[in-house]
């Protein structure tokens, strides 16, 4: 009984402290962050649209042009990460540079580069998926699940 009371007292003290701290923490600048995210994210997509249109103008099919565009965007994201530019964009743009596919490339190159010293198998090879791995797991996972659902429901 005494132990439970003590436990309850501890929890309420922690809640009280967390509330108190919450009041002291400065809020992120939602508006400024959102404007940056909008502008940079929009810019990246517009560049991709330009690439897509260019390939379509050459008479390449829509599906293939789309794939080529994704590959080029991934290359740009990876290259800018290698040059040390992508993290500087990301500091301002936040989700604006994380959410586009270039951000996916950034999340692969950045740990791979940094863990080179740990070797090419356990360093580069395994660390390059430390952030992108979960994306592939849940992406492929949900794709298969949707395919299965579609198969059984459309019968």
């Amino acid at each position: 009984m005494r132990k439970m009371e003590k436990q309850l007292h501890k929890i309420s003290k922690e809640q009280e402290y967390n509330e108190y701290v919450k009041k002291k923490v400065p809020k992120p600048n939602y508006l400024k962050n959102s404007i940056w995210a909008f502008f940079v994210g929009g810019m990246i997509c517009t560049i991709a649209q330009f690439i897509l249109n260019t390939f379509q103008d050459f008479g390449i099919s829509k599906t293939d042009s789309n794939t080529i565009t994704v590959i080029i965007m991934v290359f740009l994201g990876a290259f800018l990460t290698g040059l040390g530019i992508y993290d500087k964009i990301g500091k301002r743009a936040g989700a604006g540079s994380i959410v586009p596919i270039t951000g996916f490339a950034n999340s692969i190159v950045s740990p791979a580069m940094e863990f080179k010293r740990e070797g090419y198998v356990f360093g580069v090879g395994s660390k390059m998926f430390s952030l992108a791995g979960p994306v592939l797991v849940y992406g492929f996972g949900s794709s298969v699940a949707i395919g299965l659902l579609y198969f059984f429901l459309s019968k």
Partner: protein
Amino acid sequence: MEYIKAFIVGGIICVIGQLLMDSTKLTPAHVLVTFVTSGAILTALGIYEPIVKFGGTGATIPLPGFGYSLAKGAIDSVKKAGLLGAFTGGIESTAGGVAAAIVFGYLMAVIFNPKSKK
């Protein structure tokens, strides 16, 4: 006009991600996973297709677009190949992007070194 649509749709998707990160404690990895999965689910529900039609790369380049390709690939393959398509379709339709990410990622990691932050 196409460019403006792509700009606006892409921008809005990124703003949603930004608000998610700012108002919760979600890390970039959490946002990426959430966006890919929700893109796939929205596609299955038939909601994302019209957004892609309208926004072009504004909807396909952000990560929900990756989920879109995955789900659409799976569904199209099931139509063509039946049950097996559920397993092959998603990966087939995104193979280019994923392979590019791995190859370019590896190359960049070999060529470049990380720089210290100032």
